[in-house]
């Protein structure tokens, strides 16, 4: 009964979305306030209906209702509760429902907090948001219905893929989707602005918080995914340039560019049409990511079950969203009048350089990801483009971006002098050079790219902090606005990520050894002893667990207990790594195959600075949230200055 209720709610939501996507547009064109107001009611109703549908599916999972095909395929009665719930979005149908839910919730948020927006703009934004919703709801209902029944109902389910039964992965998809779908709001704002034929500072003040929020969630989602890959896949890497990872990186890069160009629109009334274009591209890249994951066109560790029908649907939707958006852009963008003039050396100029480089990075990733597809279509050759390609293209383009990143905040709007800015960065520069030289001589023994990258990491941190420090001194130690504080945190966080990536990627070392209980090995000054290997039973798996005693200088240091779990329902093995971290380095152990007669294969990694990668990602998101909490960015908050809208906001988004 309840699954049918969910199914019915989903059908109703589609009907409501169709109304919400058409009538308010008509109302905005005709100036009919009643039709425009319909958008708000419809957005709230649609959100409510999708919540009911999502709740119905969650209920089916929690109570292990095995008459629902989706639950049978992805759940099992013996699964821990956390993974019963995360199983809702651990599969294709459920994750699409989660996507539709977040989309509808964001639409409702615009309806609730958008009282300060002009009526026509708000109704158009809500309509565009609803049209995207129509696409996803139709996709769910026609190709991936999560409420399909199966008769007769089996006694138990097939269980969730063991690799996904992990706390890190339970929260990875929701965060990632909050990011992807967040860009749908900026897309809706961009299309609405094109329909209105007007982009102004008030528009940018709306777009920037949404971009920022989406960016923060996307950053957290990518970071969590990378952390999960690091500790579960068992080979110590954190980024594999896998097509699906690239699919999340592209909207992140475009979103980062959008974040910066929206500042120029807000403060200087310039770069309008470029910002609108970026908003269209950021969401298109999010959709492209979905297409790549769902259609199975690329070989990837993530691939969901392949289904050409689903792939064609999303491809068609992607063409509609991107093509439609770009066509509208080509038609209407020339009407967007550019505002403030500026010199090449200025804050605006620096932000243009930032956008140029970030977009080039996104294009490079796009090309490397899609190239195998093109070559296959054109010549039939199967190729793959792996880490060497990205290391040879992505990394060199990062260098000018990182070099300029610290200089930009020193430049004033409109016109600025480069030399005084550089002079004020001399301490950070000298420290970075020393760091690079020390890294080259002490760690690598020669000048290497890793040492150079290490210098860049130090430059990013110290350059951002020195701007912050000098500003503090100049203002008599008054804390700067939160937007600027957030910028400093996020910029420095990039340096933290770079240092972590260099340490783990270039300076790690590993040891692989076959050991029997009682055997010893020496690794990085530690004496490693395999104490025992024992069997144990988990809730839905049996495992072998090795106990490794690490001691240094005769004193016991730590115990690592890597496991190999055999999930009984799926008959599948998953390695559970053991990691000891002191925030400066990770000691990382995995247990391979083996038995008492021949011993077990033990693999040990020493990963310097590894935790900094995820620490940096978390810091970057924190910077974003700090900036988001700035009063001036608060959605609907009244603005000072001559462009301010005088109408006070009804609600503030807290």
């Amino acid at each position, binding site marked *: 009964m309840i699954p049918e209720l969910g199914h019915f709610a989903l059908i109703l939501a589609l009907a409501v979305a169709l109304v919400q996507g058409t009538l308010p547009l008509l109302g905005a064109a005709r100036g009919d306030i009643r039709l425009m107001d319909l958008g708000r009611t419809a957005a709230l109703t649609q959100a409510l209906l999708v919540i009911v549908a999502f709740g119905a599916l969650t209920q089916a999972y929690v109570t292990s209702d095995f008459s629902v095909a989706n639950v049978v395929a992805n759940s099992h009665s013996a699964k821990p509760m956390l993974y019963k719930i995360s199983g809702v979005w651990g599969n294709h149908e459920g994750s699409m429902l989660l996507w539709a839910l977040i989309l509808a919730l964001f639409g409702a948020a615009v309806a609730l907090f958008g009282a300060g927006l002009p009526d026509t703009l708000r109704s158009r934004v809500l309509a565009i948001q609803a049209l995207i919703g129509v696409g996803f709801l139709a996709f769910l209902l026609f190709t991936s219905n999560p409420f399909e029944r199966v008769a007769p109902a089996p006694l138990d389910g097939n269980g969730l*893929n063991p*690799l*996904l039964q992990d706390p890190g992965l339970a929260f990875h998809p929701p965060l990632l989707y909050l990011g992807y779908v967040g860009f749908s709001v900026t897309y809706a704002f961009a299309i609405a602005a094109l329909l209105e034929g007007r982009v102004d500072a008030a528009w940018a003040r709306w777009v920037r918080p949404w971009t920022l929020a989406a960016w923060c969630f996307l950053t957290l989602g990518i970071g969590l995914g990378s952390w999960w890959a690091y500790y579960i*896949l*068992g*080979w110590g890497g954190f980024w594999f340039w896998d097509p699906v990872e690239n699919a999340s990186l592209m909207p992140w890069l475009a979103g980062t560019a959008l974040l910066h160009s929206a500042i120029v629109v807000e403060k200087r009334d310039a770069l309008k049409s470029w910002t609108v274009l970026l908003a269209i591209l950021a969401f298109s890249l999010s959709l492209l990511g979905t297409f790549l994951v769902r259609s*199975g*066109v690329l*070989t990837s*560790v*993530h*691939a*969901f*079950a*392949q289904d050409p029908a689903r792939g064609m649907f999303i491809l068609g939707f992607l063409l509609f969203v991107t093509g439609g958006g770009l066509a509208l852009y080509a038609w209407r963008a020339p009407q967007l009048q550019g505002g403030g*003039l500026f*010199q*090449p050396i200025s804050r605006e100029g620096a932000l*243009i*350089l930032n956008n*140029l*480089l970030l977009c*080039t990075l996104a*294009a*490079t990733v796009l*090309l*490397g990801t899609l*190239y195998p597809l093109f070559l296959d279509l054109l010549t039939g*050759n*199967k*190729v*793959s*483009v*792996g880490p*060497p*390609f990205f290391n*040879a*293209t992505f990394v*060199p*383009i990062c260098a000018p971006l990182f070099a300029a990143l610290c200089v930009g905040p020193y430049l004033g709007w409109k016109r600025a002098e480069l030399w005084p800015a550089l002079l004020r960065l001399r301490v950070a520069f000298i420290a970075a050079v020393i760091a690079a030289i020390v890294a080259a001589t002490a760690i690598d023994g020669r000048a290497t790219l890793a040492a150079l990258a290490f210098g860049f990491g130090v430059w990013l941190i110290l350059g951002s902090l020195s701007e912050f420090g000098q500003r503090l001194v100049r203002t008599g130690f008054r804390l700067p606005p939160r937007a600027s504080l957030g910028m400093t945190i996020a910029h420095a966080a990039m340096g933290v990520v770079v240092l972590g990536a260099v340490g783990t990627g270039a300076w790690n070392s590993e040891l*692989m050894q*076959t050991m029997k209980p009682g055997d010893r090995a020496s690794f990085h000054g530690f004496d490693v002893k395999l104490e025992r290997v024992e069997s144990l039973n988990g809730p839905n798996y049996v495992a072998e667990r090795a106990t490794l005693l690490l001691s240094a200088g005769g004193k016991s240091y730590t115990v690592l207990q890597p496991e190999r779990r055999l999930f009984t329902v*799926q008959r*599948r*093995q*998953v*390695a559970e790594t053991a990691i000891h971290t002191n925030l400066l380095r990770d000691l990382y152990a*995995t247990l*391979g*195959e*083996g038995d008492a007669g*021949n*011993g*077990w*294969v033990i*693999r040990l990694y020493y990963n310097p600075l590894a935790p900094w990668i995820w620490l940096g990602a978390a810091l970057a998101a924190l910077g974003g949230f700090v900036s988001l909490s700035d009063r001036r960015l608060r959605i609907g908050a009244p603005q000072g200055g001559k462009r301010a809208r005088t109408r006070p906001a009804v609600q503030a988004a807290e």
Partner: protein
Amino acid sequence: MTPKRKRLWLVVGSLAVLGFAATLVLTALNDNIVFFYSPTQMAEKQIPPERRFRMGGLVEAGSVKKSADGQETRFRVTDTNKTVDVAYRGLLPDLFREGQGVVAEGSLGADGVFVAREILAKHDENYMPPEVAKALKDAGQWRK
């Protein structure tokens, strides 16, 4: 500076960055593309040793053997038409199994054995890598 000259600078600057990126991309594509060959294609083509490429097919049933120290695995990969010996040193992904599809990246050793440096893992056990599906289809053996 007149707006016209400024626009010119902007265009020149953008072109310079894009040109730089294009150069990087083209050289990187030349050097770093990894081709996929099925066992049949490997037999047909003369692949020089040390050239890095990917190969894949089904892990032949009963062919998986461990070395004495348990660290090296040898197995045969087949597209049902031709078969290739593969050697891999390291931990196998959790989904590696006889009779299942596999994709390996590495190069040919002097003795004709494919030395894998990486065995690709998959999330889903029902998932058949598209390359392997195509290789099997080309060998005339693929049935859904």
